[in-house]
């Protein structure tokens, strides 16, 4: 049994020592917000925090985590910086397909938590491990600056989701791919 501290909760898992944290999160615990893109630390889709530092979970053996706090995309909104990053991502609509964005947000949050006002070069260094196949880099840069400066640096989108619906509920509604006979 390996005991992990994930998003503030203690989780015991019975897995091989060499199993990468990514697969423990996704396939054993069921936290699927952390994505698989390459498996060889090239794309950053699997980025999580270990005591606040961004790491690639696809190459991190679970036995190496020890007592360090693991934060995933599901938990990053609990921190003030993480929440601001998520909001900026929505306000200027960074997301396209969204598959890379868990990792992008984890990397950006780690950067901004350590360096609240990063230079362009610091942004490049912190974010260049995260591939976006949809090519959202221009807006990732803008969103990080928006968080860093507190100023609106790019045109903002107009939110449409009903104020009562939580993001998760809105997503669930969209995801339900209701078959026609289920419409009621």
């Amino acid at each position: 049994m390996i005991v992990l501290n994930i998003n503030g909760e203690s989780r015991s898992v019975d897995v091989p020592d060499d199993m990468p944290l990514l697969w423990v999160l996704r396939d054993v615990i069921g936290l699927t917000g952390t994505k698989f893109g390459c498996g060889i630390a090239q794309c950053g889709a699997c980025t999580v925090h270990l005591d606040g530092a961004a790491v690639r979970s696809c190459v991190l053996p679970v036995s190496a985590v020890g007592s360090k706090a693991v934060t995933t995309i599901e938990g990053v909104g609990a921190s003030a910086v993480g929440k601001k990053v998520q909001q900026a991502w929505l306000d200027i609509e960074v997301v396209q397909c969204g598959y890379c964005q868990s990792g992008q947000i984890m990397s950006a949050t780690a950067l901004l938590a350590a360096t609240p006002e990063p230079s362009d070069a610091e942004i490049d260094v912190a974010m260049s491990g995260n591939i976006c196949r949809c090519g959202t880099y221009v807006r990732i840069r803008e969103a990080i600056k928006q968080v860093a400066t507190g100023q609106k640096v790019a045109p903002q989108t107009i939110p449409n989701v009903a104020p009562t619906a939580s993001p998760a509920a809105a997503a669930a509604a969209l995801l339900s791919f209701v078959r026609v006979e289920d419409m009621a």
Partner: protein
Amino acid sequence: MNARFGDPLGEGRPDNPSRREALKLGGLVVAFLWLGGGAKVLGRAVAQGPVAAGDPAFAPNAFIRVGADGSVHLVMPSIEMGQGAYTGQATLLAEEMDLGLDQIVVEHAPANRKLYANPLLGEQATGGSTTIRYCWTTMRQAGAAARTLLVNAAAAKWKVDPAQCTVARGVIRHEASGRTVGYGEVANAAAQLPVPEKVQEKDPSAFALIGKPLRRVDTAGKVDGSLQFGIDLRVPDMKIATVKACPTFGGKLVAVDDSRARQVPGFVAVLKIADAVAVVGEHFWAAKQAMEALDITWDHGPNAHYSTEQLFKDLAEASKNGTPIPGKAVGNVDGVKGKALEATYQLPLLAHATLEPQNAIVHVRPDGCDIWTGTQVPARCVDVAAKLTGLKPETIVVHNQYMGGGFGRRLFEDPVEQAVAFARQVSYPLKVVWTREEDIAHDRFRPAYYDRIAATLGDDGKPLAWTHRITSGSVLATFAPGAMAKNGMDSDAIECAADLPYEFPNVKVEWVRHDPPDGLHLGWWRGVGPVHNVFVIESFIDELAHAANKDPLAYRRDLLQKNPRALAVLNLAAEKAGWGKGSLPARVGRGVAVAAPFGSYLCVIVEAEVSPQGEVKLRRAVAAVDCGVAVNPNTVEAQIQGGLIFGWTTALYNGITLKNGTVQQHNFNDYRMMRINETPALEVHLVDSKETPGGIGETGTVMAFPALFNAVFAATGVRLRSYPIDRAALVQGAEALKAVVTQASDHGQAQEGKV
């Protein structure tokens, strides 16, 4: 993809029973239909039951349903893969119905090509930058029909003139009396009214939503990890497999020794099909570890010695000796006198590399089959599953999922077909997840192209004759054979080549078909035909401008005098980029490209710097876009930004090569992606246009290549006619490697430039 694909498989699927079920429910249903020759709404209101009894003439392919509770559902055919399709379609509907975008629930259409065929594709498919193009009229007319019915019902109830009623956020208000009623309360009454023969969509001046940067409806769950993609789904009792197909295309599986794999903790089973192995585990890691422990014997088959060199040799040979199919002929290119130039361009096979690797969950039971996957072609997934399992199509359900990128890859159902072939061997739901290595090695590759292009310039430097011979395999011929023209032409192969934005007195465009060997599958790739043709054409136009000693932008401006929309984007980009103004440092150059792909007009200017070692850095880029009415300008900008980066990534780094019949690229280490530190400052300027919307999702990618390569030429004097960029050719001082536009001799004998 202007082609209409017809029904390539020619099957008549029984009507989806669920459609009739839907019509039995209360409220107002406005169903509509795409008709041949252009989408047209067939408004049809239905209340309790009248259609449920069966009305064979009534086969709508999309629905708006206004429930008695006021909910508005839209069941629609295009799927979301990051391009903003949901938001775009819902925006059109919300606009006409005077609803907020948040008041519409969008739903994936179930697999049924009869109901949900995309009229521009003739197939239930999302591709070819068609979503907004086919929805533009239809969705608005359907929305206007629904609104008219609902307002008429309210007006009848109050005994007032419908014209005196207004609507805001689904609440109808009679201005004079101040009475109000919600859509839901009059939905049943509205369903009893005859559908108006003709409805008037809103005048653009009244648009409240169209043209506004509305936030997409699918993004909130993508920033907190709550939204699940196909690869994230977990269904009860499922096991997880990873696969390995024969690395040599066209090869077969001979034998598998799994004695070591069985020792891996979490190992479940090894499954075999003719050309691939799956290892099933309790989790992906077990499956992957066990896969690596297998000893597999392959029969490498007939292509064991095939290589990229062979591919291009065959294409060059076909270009020379094959039978060209005419694509466009204007005047007569033969015997035109003037300064003759000719060049050869050669484009590689390409992989899609969607960030979400291919995956599917398949549960085959004696009485049916469930498939959970993100696909651009749900009806085809049903077809292959029915064929493999022998189950009736109506017992096969495709649960379509959000996709981590499509780019054309998910227009091909081969990963689903393979997953079904494995899953039918087990009783539990089988989740098949490809490794990145498998995803790249077994893609449906963008075809390789071999182009010979020539022009004869008059004394003023303008082309008098233009000849373009394209040689390639055909995607269309396998994807939709019925859509090939009678003379064997593949309309995709010549798209944007046969319809140039420039007008030349003598033009000959032709295509020679040469397919790769069996087993090497070709596929649609972001930008399809135009992404190839526009690169060749806009690079060659640049060559002509330089040969004529003209500024490349001024040269184009001269040639576009009869094309006002193209001219307008050219001028806008030139102004925003400061073309011709200021001086640039050594080995920095600006390149321009202009084209009209997918019904939109674009001009892109790139400023690039080439290091003495031959590394290319993009410094800045400006795009000017006229895509007609921009339904959501924010989405348009995002698609241009992303599309350009997608193209530059390929220009800088990508190309699939084969050796011994095996793909030589594996993962993002050797099939590289552009990263944030390589991304230039990038401006997108939209022309305020009232024209019908054009496609947008692929246009940036189309423009990326020529704009960048023309900039590289401006910086170095080296003309690159292939990609990925040949850095060795760009090393400073490597004069011997420089390619030049070669001038034909007096006798018209052309030499070929470096390719």
